[in-house]
Structures are given as structure tokens and as C-alpha cells.
């Protein structure tokens, strides 16, 4: 852990200081949506339901699974999703 650091903003300060979300998709029709199962019980059932809705809205769906919910996704998996999909939905479950 480092101690608190304060930097001076080098920008025009037109954006909020908090980190910004990436741009959202404007529509789902024709988009490829990744569904990432983090490997917790019941995740599959939740994502199956999401998939049905997405298909109805005209999206394509690709399914992925993390090896374990306890760790962040392996770099290879993140890269694969970023290349193959326009957006990803992560299926948390408990």
C-alpha cells in the first residue's frame, strides 16, 4: 500500500475527476455479447436467462467461464473476450 497521493489535474477539467466508464453500446441488435460465468453455483441458470433475453433483442451471445471465482480472470480469457465481443456481462451468483 502506498500513502495517499494528490496530483494536479493536467486537463481542461471538463470531465468529472472520477474515472469514467467506457462508452456503452447504443443498441444490442447485431452486437456480440459475452456472458462470463465466474464459476459460482447457479451462475449458469442466471446467464441462461440473460441469454434468452439478449437473443430476443437481436444480439449474438458467446459464453465464457472463469476457472475460479476466487481469482481475477486469466489474461488470455480477458483478451479473448475483448477480441470476440462488443460487451460482456459477468454473472455473479450466490
Amino acid at each position: 500500500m502506498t500513502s495517499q497521493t494528490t496530483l494536479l489535474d493536467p486537463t481542461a477539467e471538463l470531465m468529472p475527476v472520477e474515472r469514467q466508464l467506457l462508452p456503452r453500446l447504443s443498441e444490442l441488435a447485431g452486437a456480440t455479447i459475452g456472458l462470463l460465468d465466474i464459476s459460482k453455483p447457479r451462475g449458469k441458470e442466471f446467464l441462461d436467462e440473460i441469454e434468452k433475453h439478449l437473443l430476443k433483442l437481436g444480439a449474438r451471445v458467446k459464453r465464457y467461464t472463469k476457472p475460479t471465482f476466487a481469482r481475477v480472470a486469466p489474461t488470455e480469457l480477458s483478451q479473448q473476450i475483448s477480441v470476440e465481443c462488443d460487451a460482456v456481462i459477468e454473472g455473479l451468483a450466490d
Partner: protein
Amino acid sequence: MLASQLDNNLTVYVQDDPTFPASISHRIDDTSLEFSYRNAIEIVPTLIRLKNDSENESRIFGWDKQQWQEFTGIENLGAELIDFKPGCGSKTQDPGMDELLALKYGNQQFSARRVDLAESEDIMEACFERGWSDGLPVVPPTTVRVMRMLSGTDRNADEMLGNIPPDNIPCTIEKLAINAVMAGCKPEYFPVVIASVEAALQDRFCMHGLLCTTYFSAPVMVINGPVSKQIGMNSGVNALGQGNRANATIGRALQLVVRNVGGGIPGGIDRATMGNPGKYSYCFAEDESDSNWNSLAMDRGYERGDSVISLFAGGGLQAIIDQQSREPESLAKSMAASLRGVAHTKLFGMVDAILVISPEHRRIYREGGWSKADVKQALYEELMTPGTELVRGANDIAEGMPEKFRDIVLNKFQEDGLHIVSAGGTAGMFSAIIDGWAASGSLGSQIVSQKIL
């Protein structure tokens, strides 16, 4: 003795060991240096005599026995000590300390928004994630670093430099200092960085258009005059390459300002088809070792002793090999032949260029008795070309000059479109061409210069 005679009227402020001197009861721990900073102590010991409200205090520094005796009115003060010791520098004068103390106890206020990072954030990564970087790591702009950068100029932090394109956002000296820190500049480079922004904001440079263009070009900086040696810039071996901090970071600072303040983001308003590697930084000093050869700044009306930055809207680098010419006439023809290749061999009067002449090629001209003006004149004459060779379709190439130029003799460069600069290492019969923007000239960008103050 001083303590016993002055009784409660003596207070000792101690910068390092607060237990010293044990014999004095009125001892105040100033290891924080707050008292020393607020009272502008430069030498220890400093003896201050406080007077009545109406009178000013007076001070003496170091140890001069006679002076101390007169100052305190104690005749035999320190009789057993040596007569004179000059004292030491106060800890407030340690390198870098002034800015730290100014931040803690001084009046410096920053206008820029403060960005507090979470404890878990990596500082370098945080700068990337906020979009402040050109793709390379930036130096995190902490308050103390910005304070140090501001110490490189006498100008006020809140002074407005102008509106930075493309978003036309007002830019202060402070905002520029933040970006100069991130670029990796030292405070002593800051006057050059300020001048670079002032030059870029000159209307004839057309920074907005240059940023938006699909062409390769970006600001190319040439530094002339004493400042280049003072801040250790490279005009010699590998002058246009990597490895010199001033060359690398001054050029980068302008690019970061355009990005961060102006909002000029590649793929956003910056529409370059390919760009060029100089868009990270393209800055070098001219070799002014030959007093018979005029510098770029002198060509542009300045004196040899002036420190000047010139900005040229330029792109990559094209080599000229000539290892055979021993006469100026041959070398000039050789260079002219290569200069025809700027942008396209059949496009004339359109794209400006900087010809960077190496020391070995300069030697050929010098030994042949040619001045820089002679070189320019010879190139001008060599580059006159009949329109019949240049019009669209000529030589079975569709590209070329419009048909209306068929019966006209054209020059490759418009008036004041070819600039000559000296740089490079002493070995190698190579010179170079920095090609200009396709919108060179009065309707696009023209070279600009700014005195560095």
C-alpha cells in the same frame, strides 16, 4: 554566557537536534523548519535582535566575536572562542527544500483541480487510466513537482497564455507547468516550453488545422541561441534521435498540452492517416559552431545571441546520401534532386521543407567558399522545373500539377518555403529533409519563431 546574561530574553530555535544546547532553557524544536522558513533564515546561526514595536529587528549571521559582542552589548562574550567562523547553510536551503516548505507554509495556491488517488492505485497507472498520457509513462504531477517547475520562470502561475486548440481551452502557466512535469521536463527547460506554446498559438502556425489533418505533420521544434547549450540540448551526434532529456521532453510537453488541455486526441479530432513518430516529440537544437554560417533564427531576423524557438509543421525524415561530391555545385544539385521527392516529385509549390545539413556536407560548402545564402540560391535555381514535366499525366503518372501550370516554370518550394538548419555528428556525409505539411503556406501553416525569455 549569552543565556545567563539575557535570562529569559533569549530563545534558541534548533533545526536538527532539539536537545542541543542542553544548557539553554528557552529552546524551541524547529525540526519542521516552519519558524526558519517563515523568518527566511539562510545561515545558521542567525542571531535576531527583536526591538520595540516601532523599530525593525536586526540580524547577524555566523560567528564574528567582535560583532556578537557589539550586537549583544556583552563585552567579554565568548572570550575563550576563536574570532571568526562563517556559520553553515540553514536546512531550509537544502536542495528541493524550498518548494516543500513553500507548499507547507507558503502562499502558493494552485488553481488546478486536485485529483486524490486511492491508496491502492499505482500512481503511474493512474495517469494512464485517466487518459493523460501520449502512450508513454508520464511523471505524476504532484504539487511539489509542479511547484518546482514553476520556479523555472518568473511569470505568474495564473498568467493566461492563450486558448489551446482544438477545444480552445484557456491555458495558464500553471496548467502548462503540470504538463511539462508530466513530459519529464526540468524547471530550467520551462522557459523554452512556454515559448513553444506561445509560438504554437501564433495564428500563422495554424495549430488547430495541423492537429486535425489527415497528413503526417506535427510541430517540429528547432532551438537556437545560448539557451540550447545552457540546458544541455543535443545538436550533434543523433540530434534528431533519442537520448537527450531536453530534446525529448520539451517537444513532448507541447504535445501533452495539446492533448490534455486542448483535447486533441488521436482518432478524435486528430485524424492523421498514419501520423509520424515525431508526434511524441520532435525537438532539436541547431549546431551553431560555425560563426560564418547563419542559423535558422538569424535567417528569421534574430541576432546570434538571441535564444529562439522555431516551430515548423513537419513530418518524418528523408535521408540524403552524398559521399562523392567534393564541390559545392555538385552537392547542391544532389540535394536539390532529393528535395524534389518531398511529398511527391511532381507536386510543386505546395509542401515546405527543412533541409538539415550535416557538418561534413557543410564543410564541402565552406571549403568551396559558399555561404548559406549561396546554397539557398543554388537550390532555388536547381529546383525550377517546366510545368510540362509536372502536370497530371506527365511521365504516365496521374498525380501532378493541374493542367493550367503546363506552360509555367515552377519552383519546388514557395517563397520562404525551404529552411536550412545545421545539425548532426561530425562523421557521415548524410543530410536530411524534414518534409512539411501538405497545407504549407499562408492558407495553412507557416514557420513561426518566438524569443525565449
